[in-house]
């Protein structure tokens, strides 16, 4: 096969260069250059997420939430910082550790909690539960619970933007463990080759369930996996909100300009177990303690105070507001009814079916769906 126009294929055996240059993440801004109300709002959002998950954990132990519950305590700066860098018309897709991401995207806390409770007012109508939140109005295309499954989907969302020549980007969030799936590698290669506007945001919390990254891969600097596909890649501190925001914003700018995907590896840690069922035999208390010192909320609060941009009272007020928001969310979820049993078969297909399926079969009624 001959090399066509624009092909990098050399017609001699000299080792050439391929890959990328030209992109590095923006550094975080100076705190004093940011409006204090905005900083306070970030803080408040992180506290909402933290409280939300603590209360969800309680409800879980009381049997009011079923199945699996994956909490993201410790990863709040990624959710809030990452989403602060997106435009409303951009897309978001993530994995099952999705509460914080949904809240940071602006989904109503009451409706998110109602989803965890399996109630009709839940963001997924009570059908999805904790692992499968979604909010079409916010272009949040779902929490996806099969590891790696949503990375090719993210590439496809980006393909739609590229195809329609719309300056939109896709933020695709996943864990370190997901980088060992075949879908990850196929998606990165496709996105790189077609220069699709995706930001791959890998939340490296050092474990996939109980397996430490160094026991699952040799390349533990995960950003190098992005680089391997010719994608501009960087490692950032996922505990620092403004660092995250700046990196995602600069990645979004790059992707929006049609220059292709960016891969960000954000170092972070989850303070709780993988799910509520985790015996946590695989890590030490010392390790957990060391990472507690990097608590993204404390860190941010400390920075704000040190820079003198907010007062301790303002933070305390934000704490109270966050608690109120979450209490209201719980109250909303509690009073929300169970889904109507008559809807069990609704929406298996979008289109009505020509022929009814036999007893128990879905009838394809999608009309109740937005």
């Amino acid at each position: 096969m001959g090399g066509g126009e624009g092909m990098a294929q050399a017609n001699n055996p000299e080792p050439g260069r391929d890959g990328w240059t030209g992109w590095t993440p923006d550094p975080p801004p100076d705190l004093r250059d940011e409006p204090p109300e905005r900083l306070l709002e970030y803080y408040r959002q992180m506290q909402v997420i933290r409280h939300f998950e603590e209360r969800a954990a309680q409800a879980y132990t009381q049997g009011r939430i079923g199945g699996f519950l994956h909490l993201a305590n410790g990863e709040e700066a990624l959710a809030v910082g990452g989403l602060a860098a997106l435009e409303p018309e951009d897309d978001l897709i993530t994995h099952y550790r999705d509460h914080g991401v949904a809240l940071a995207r602006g989904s109503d806390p009451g409706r998110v909690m109602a989803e965890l409770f399996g109630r009709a007012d839940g963001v997924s109508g009570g059908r999805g539960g904790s692992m499968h939140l979604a909010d079409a109005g916010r272009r949040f295309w779902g929490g996806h619970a099969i590891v790696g499954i949503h990375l090719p989907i993210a590439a496809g969302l980006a393909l739609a933007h590229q195809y329609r020549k719309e300056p939109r980007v896709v933020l695709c969030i996943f864990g370190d463990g997901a980088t060992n799936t075949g879908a990850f590698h196929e998606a990165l290669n496709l996105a790189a080759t077609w220069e699709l506007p995706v930001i791959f945001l890998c939340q490296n919390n050092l474990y996939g369930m109980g397996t430490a990254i160094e026991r699952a891969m040799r390349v533990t600097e995960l950003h190098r996996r992005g680089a391997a596909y010719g994608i501009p890649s960087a490692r950032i501190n996922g505990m620092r909100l403004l660092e995250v925001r700046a990196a995602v914003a600069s990645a979004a700018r790059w992707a929006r300009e049609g220059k292709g995907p960016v891969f960000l590896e954000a170092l972070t840690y989850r303070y709780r177990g993988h799910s509520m069922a985790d015996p946590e035999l695989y890590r030490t208390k010392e390790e957990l303690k060391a990472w507690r010192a990097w608590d993204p909320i404390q860190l941010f609060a400390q920075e704000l105070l040190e820079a003198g941009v907010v007062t301790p009272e303002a933070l305390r007020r934000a704490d109270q507001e966050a608690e109120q928001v979450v209490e209201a969310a719980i109250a909303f979820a509690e009073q929300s009814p169970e889904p109507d049993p008559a809807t069990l078969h609704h929406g298996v297909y979008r289109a009505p079916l020509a022929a009814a399926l036999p007893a128990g079969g879905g009838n394809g009624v999608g009309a109740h769906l937005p």
Partner: protein
Amino acid sequence: MELTYREAVRRALMEEMERDERVFIMGEDVGAYGGSYAVTKGLLARFGPERVRDTPISEAAIAGAGIGAALGGLRPVVEIMSINFILPAADQLINGAAKIHYMFNGQFHVPLVVRTVNGGRRLAATHSQNLEVLFAFIPGLKVVTPASPADAYGLLKAAIRDPDPVLFVESALLYSMKGPVPDDPDFLVPLGQSLVRREGRDLTLVAHSRGVVVALEAAERLAAQGVEAEVVDLRTLRPLDMGPVLASVRKTGRVVIVGDDWQSYGVGAEIAARLAEEAFEALRGPVLRVGGAEVPMPYAANLERLALPQVDGVIRRAARLLEGDGAWLVR
């Protein structure tokens, strides 16, 4: 001895590993984490990381490496954390493991066991599936679905000693079930043998995996009303042993197939077809099925309850067959 289903699986694994040093385990979080359903708990300490291998989240590689290791002379027992996560590995199993012995004219074979688990509750659409029937469709694979501690024990040992690729599907909802298990390290339950779990003359209930428990409960309730239901546990979906099913239906003339999954194209569909072909003259009524609603599983507790097959559904169908006695005759 009395063991839980979980302990029975663990014991079978341990004994086979002691017996045959070619046997080893690999899968996600089978070692340091202790197994996501605690089945492999303690095995890492006992056998070390060479033989209890934590893998990356790479189902295709896990299954494929299992095939390769089996070709290379080992006896891998690989774990796919849940049958919901097996689909990336399906290519390896369906286009690889299932084909190799026949396609290469028997020059080599694949003594691989893939352990996985179905069931689970309140886990919603992606995590609540019983997908074993997809694999039962494939000639070249064997598919085993134990429904008691003794069967879990004896079938797993037989699977590990079997020269062919076996998908061994445990049931998450049965892990805590207790039952007698023979105290014999060479106790084997041959693959491909159905078993009458309860005798009865009026009606036959056919089931596999957790469906057996539903069928047994239904039989218990029917007995209270004077109806004696016979319960046949298929145990192995492929190769399928129709013998006890046919014998039972020839005796009772009535049959309800109890599934824990979707009906269309499912295990019940296969059994019904076989009955139509091989025992048509014995049937005194239609072959009825109980199964889940044909929807992706909803998370909400009330919808999930509606979607899952229930004992009541079995009773209703049994009543229909018994009341309609004669009326159903098509001859």
